[in-house]
């Protein structure tokens, strides 16, 4: 089961530091129960990583990105990870859109919090495994962040065989379906971590309503 931090759900719903009133809390509870039907799945593979300036090479993939190169500086291996909550949230959200729009945004927020929490869980396993082999992990990084093109989602689909392994597909516009899915790259380095801050601090969009801290 995925442990969700309820404050994260409130934050995604735009409550910032406030707590929703009783009737909304009740709906959040009901949504949480519905979301128990989710079938989270993940797939990952580890590859040797070569870096040439702002160009990154692993498996049959070539990514040109200044931001990702910075994140992966000094890494010799890269873990490609894909996680998903499966098709259930998509169906619940489509349904709530007809019946109860408030629930559709709650499910949406809850889905975000759940997939992040689930990805954190898997990421933690990767960190433990890496530590045992003498590696440190960089914060995970996804296609579409900074100057890392979203089109690299297609590489993920291919190298992780995502439609077959976890049922995640891409649309023409390179968006993932089911919606609540994450792909991420995690660099492994022998260097001690300079403890890079989490994603909000790295992000350049400082006027974001969801920004933490």
């Amino acid at each position, binding site marked *: 089961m995925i442990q969700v931090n309820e404050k994260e759900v409130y934050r995604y719903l735009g409550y910032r530091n406030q707590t929703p009133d009783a009737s909304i809390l009740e709906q959040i509870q009901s949504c949480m129960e519905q979301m128990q039907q989710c079938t989270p799945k993940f797939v990952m593979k580890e590859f040797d990583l070569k870096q040439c300036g702002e160009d990154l090479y692993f498996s049959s993939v070539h990514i040109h990105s200044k931001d990702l190169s910075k994140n992966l500086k000094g890494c010799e291996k890269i873990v490609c990870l894909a996680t998903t909550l499966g098709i259930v949230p998509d*169906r619940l959200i489509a349904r709530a859109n007809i019946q109860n729009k408030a629930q559709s945004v709650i499910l949406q927020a809850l889905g975000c919090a759940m997939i992040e929490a689930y990805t954190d869980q898997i990421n933690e396993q990767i960190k433990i495994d890496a530590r045992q082999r003498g590696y440190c992990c960089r914060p995970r990084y996804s296609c579409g962040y900074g100057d890392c093109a979203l089109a690299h989602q297609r590489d993920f689909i291919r190298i992780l065989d995502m439609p077959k392994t976890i049922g995640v597909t891409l649309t023409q516009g390179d968006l993932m379906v089911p919606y609540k899915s994450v792909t991420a790259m995690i660099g492994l380095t022998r260097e001690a971590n300079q403890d890079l801050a989490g994603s909000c601090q790295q992000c350049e969009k400082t006027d974001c309503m969801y920004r933490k801290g």
Partner: protein
Amino acid sequence: MITDRLGKEWIYFDGGLGTMLQERGLPGGEYPETWNLTHPEELIAIHKAYLEAGCHVINANTFGANGLKFDNVEEIITAGIQLAKEAKKQAGCMDAYVALDIGPTGKLLEPMGDLPFEKAVSYFSQMVKAGVKAGADLILIETMSDTYEAKAAVLAAKENSSLPVIVTMIFDENQRLLTGGSVESAVAMLEGLRVDALGINCGLGPEQMLPVVKRIREVSSLPIIVNPNAGLPVQLNGKTVYDLKADDFAQAMVKIAQIGVQGLGGCCGTTPEYIQKMIEAVKDIPCQPNTMKEQTWVTSYASAVQIGKKAVVIGERINPTGKKRFQQALRNKEFDYILSQALEQEEAGAQILDVNVGLPDVDEAEMMKETVVRLQNVCALPLQIDTGNLEALENALRLYNGKPMVNSVNGKLDSMESVFPLIQKYGAVVVGLCLDESGIPSTSKKRLAIAQKIVQKAQEYGIQKKDIVIDGLAMTISSQPDGALVTLDTLQKVKEELNVSTILGVSNISFGLPQREIINSYFLSMALQSGLSCAMINPNNEMMKKAFDASMALMNQDAQCMHYISNYSKQVEEKKSENPEVSLSFAIQKGMQDRVKEITTSLLETKAPLEIIDEELIPALDLVGKGFEQGTVFLPQLLMSAESAKASFEVLKEKMAQNQSLSKGKIILATVQGDIHDIGKNIVKVLLENYGYEVLDLGKDVAPEVIVQTAISEEVKLVGLSALMTTTVKSMEETIELLHKEKPDTFVVVGGAVLNQEYADQIHADHYAKDAMATVRYAEQILKQ
């Protein structure tokens, strides 16, 4: 033909092909099918090794050779089939079969994904045509995790070849497909489509497959094929390996063989050694053909309802007959209203939904298509396609994900000759009405004779008795005094003498009488006692629901009265805690939807609809809207209020004269092309509707041309566009450019997660709205009369 042998002797399928190719140097991430052209000798060697291991069926290397991945589909498939045939020759196994192997496209079909069903059919058709031309002996559709995509592939196979078709799906340990389908839903659909054999492959090892295979054996009557992986995957030094050795695999396959399947092979991780040892281990176990199952299943993509075991409720409300509001929704294509009718019935306990969208001034064939697809997007219940329009029927049968019910065929020859071929092709449980060229017989004996005629005629089309449900026809007792008795007697006779399930549209019985639900509910109980299998009723009608639930409990069809107890013990408590008197404005602000409906209804006794809108609704909405703008009301609360206001408008609309319009103007909303996130757009929609605007919701992933054409044809002054990703803002810009060029007097407001004022200016939007209320304010400014 392989079909002559399947079920009479063991048929062995080959093992993993990708595994073998990777061992021979295929780099991870490269399409294996390219090797048909670049490394032909490796493929011949692999196929040969499998033939020498004792396989009867080898899969050509064509799994992913579809038009989404390749420009040269025919070349790759032709080469793939020829290499397999060459291996047959070299191995001296001329009686082996070469399968055109078809895997999933890797895309999710509409409406969940963005690949249209017919597009999927055409990609698969291209593969089938090439495979037939190259001389494949059969078509193996495998590793399917979506029943819908499997259906597209089977239709492609059937429409472009006469080869045997085998389908194996990929189930998980919970016996589910990745898209939610169950063993029953997949088996019923595939049997309906008349595949020659079915089964399971990939995903699991043989041990984990055991319970799934057992369930398939319990439900299916067809030969069963089982091709497991070499156990479960484990990561070893960054590589995926499987945890069963060849000997363990062979032993596990013995257990599978003993369940009573007919075809055995392997999938990922298995090699010729695995297959050879498996054959060695199972060859002396006698191969038994599968048995015929007399179960009637109606299914959707996820759920399966069995008919005949226990009475089922079919919800009748998706039907415009006598319902002004529903007719209006059909004419205006208000799908949200139609869908809400479905979900209400599901919540009230309907197990199947009847879908009738026929109106003289509506294009029923198109409407049916869209309604079925949209219904299946939000509602998991199986559907009963209710139409006399053959084009509408075929559209629905084709696009339906599962095995539906069809309402109906009757004893007239031309009805049977036009409906049965469609049932034969697509598979369905069909309702047969007891009437023919000479009308509706007045005796049960004659009605039974028509039922018999329908069952017999169906057999000519290969439609089994278990897939027919007879409608005994409820005729109103106000004009035919013995109508109910004749109907009840027909139910009994059909059940006892024909052993066929029955259905009734219950409420016809009281036509022309006052307080119809009294008659209807008693008649329902009597019909259930006479053996009725499917009760077509309004499940939201309290009395009908009570009559059904009570009958189930009384007839020992509700184990320990659990359903009855859970439904009726809490109702009394709820009534006690009813809310005290509140105003409409308060109820809207608090989002109390049920109260809002009640209060609106009672207000209508003293006030006109427009008065209620101006004095109660709009001020309440304004309060909530202002609260949202000031940051004291948050999005979920805003939406709860909006939905409540909408419920109030629904009540008012029913009271208002047909020509009286509330509309303050039309607004188009769309999520732009390439983007599939529509939550933001949907939020804006409900708020705009609250404020009296007529929203033309074009949906998600909408092409610029469609938006522009609609703006022109509907003379729309304001268009709202939404985009979530930076990559789709480009498409927003194109839409704005085209709109400004083709319809310069239309304003464009944009919104979405990645947008801000700066971005909006860059793409020449007329306005940027930071949230839903901001869009409402802009609409007020632009559409002010």
